[in-house]
């Protein structure tokens, strides 16, 4: 298997529950996020959702796993962004 076909499991954590999804290293991250949210019973738009690593780094869901240097099984955390309110 060449590097472009490499598959592994990402565990998306949503509200304290784990949702393992098999992904391809070149796949757009948001495809996996869509699947995880659907499994969590929250299908639909990704608007307002944020994806972070365990260290808190925000991940651009439009990039690929390879772009973000995620090359093997990893746990990623999904939660809603700050949303409304706040001050400049």
């Amino acid at each position, binding site marked *: 298997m060449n590097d472009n076909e490499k598959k592994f499991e990402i565990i998306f954590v949503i509200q*304290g529950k784990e949702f393992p999804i098999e992904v391809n290293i070149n796949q757009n991250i948001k495809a996996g996020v869509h699947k995880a949210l659907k499994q969590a019973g929250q299908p639909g738009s990704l608007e307002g959702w944020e994806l972070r690593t365990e*260290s808190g780094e925000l991940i651009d869901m439009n990039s690929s796993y390879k772009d973000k240097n995620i090359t093997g099984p990893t746990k990623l*955390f999904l939660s809603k962004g700050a*949303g409304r*309110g*706040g*001050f400049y």
Partner: protein
Amino acid sequence: MPQGQIPLIIRESPKIDRRRHLRINAELLLLDPNVSNVYFKNVVNELEEKGKIYKDIWKIKKIFYPNIFIDVLSTKGETLLIISLNLRNYNYFPPQVGILTPDEKLTKRLNPDAIIPDDQGIKHLIKHNRGVWVCTPGTYEYHDFYYDLDRWELERYGTTCNIIEIINRIIGMIDRSKENIVHPDD
């Protein structure tokens, strides 16, 4: 105007205070301890059941009705600060949220460098006379301030206001790689 209805605009008060509508002086009010106790136990059960998965990000420090203290951990595993959740009138009102130092003292401001703005450059952790105000849906302070625009009753059972979501959302506003989160002058 019907009895008990409060005008949305309070005349002759500063603009910012108009938003604080004096609807009810709920800052220290305890509505029904039996009701809030039931909801408090539900929240504690949810946190104990689902919180373990976040063990390297946050953990429960202390539970004493109606308060829950959450340790926020740095990327090195040390306690950076504490999120204090007061569920005194939950879920008629949202949880009141405070930010404490690791030794449980109220902090009035955070190091600006440690506050992460949202994707529009807006910060949601704001210095306030009575401690840091967490300005985000799901907190008492937010829904009280935006009472006429954003009603807690309409979304308290929704995803955005889930207790785990609120904790994670607040932590997402903090740069956990920084060691000095609390402002040195506080």
